[in-house]
């Protein structure tokens, strides 16, 4: 009888542990708006080449913003978004995920450098947007990079969960 009570108490404690871990993981994961912002930013920066006479200015602004984020992240040893939310997800180095990401990224970059412009012109022509090839290319870039980022986040989260 006492053993059953102990087992029940242990099961309840385990449930509480899992609930805490899941809530924390949810609070620390990349929020959905971040993916939307990432997609829009990549698409907008690339599309700017179709609309702005001096796209280098926009590229410089984005570069400066990236440098600021990197400096803040390295100086504070945490991402600015995590500092705002008060929690940072556990991130260990996962060689397998790093390798897959590197491979997919390298293949993607090679494909873009080889066929990106021609493909964008073809798609833009097909859609009747012949004058906006960079906009089309921007949407494609944004979709690919956002999907890659989301896939990495999912793989890391799953790997962390399996490691607990």
């Amino acid at each position, binding site marked *: 009888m006492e053993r059953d009570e102990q*087992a029940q108490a242990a099961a309840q404690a385990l449930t509480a542990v899992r609930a805490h871990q899941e809530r924390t993981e949810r609070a620390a994961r990349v929020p959905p708006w971040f993916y939307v912002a990432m997609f829009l930013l990549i698409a907008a920066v690339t599309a700017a080449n179709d609309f702005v006479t001096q796209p280098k200015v926009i590229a410089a602004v984005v570069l400066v913003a990236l440098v600021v984020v990197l400096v803040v992240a390295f100086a504070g040893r945490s991402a600015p978004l995590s500092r705002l939310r008060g929690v940072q997800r556990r991130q260990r180095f996962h060689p397998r995920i790093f390798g897959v990401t590197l491979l997919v990224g390298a293949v993607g970059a090679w494909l873009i450098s080889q066929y990106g412009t021609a493909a964008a012109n073809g798609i833009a022509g097909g859609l009747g947007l012949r004058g906006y090839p960079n906009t089309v290319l921007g949407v494609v870039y944004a979709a690919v990079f956002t999907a890659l980022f989301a896939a990495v986040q999912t793989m890391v989260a799953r790997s962390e969960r399996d490691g607990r």
Partner: protein
Amino acid sequence: MSVLSAADWCDFAFLRDEVALSDSALSKQLTTLKNDGQIEQHRAYIGRVPKTTVRATDSGIQRFREHVAALQAIADRTPASRGRPE
């Protein structure tokens, strides 16, 4: 520790809200864990406002996992578990 095991670090305020403890009760718990080497605390100032972050140490995580494994072993001793087909 269950919260800290799922995060790299978190703020004192985040931890307090997650575990639903008062500031003083949480401080006492954290002091005990810190003295035992299971967590690290880091205090920084933003202007004049102190901000404390808490992180589980590697040994703290290891000991927490052992604790969870022990709980799992006890929970598995229920009659329902024993009767469950493999």
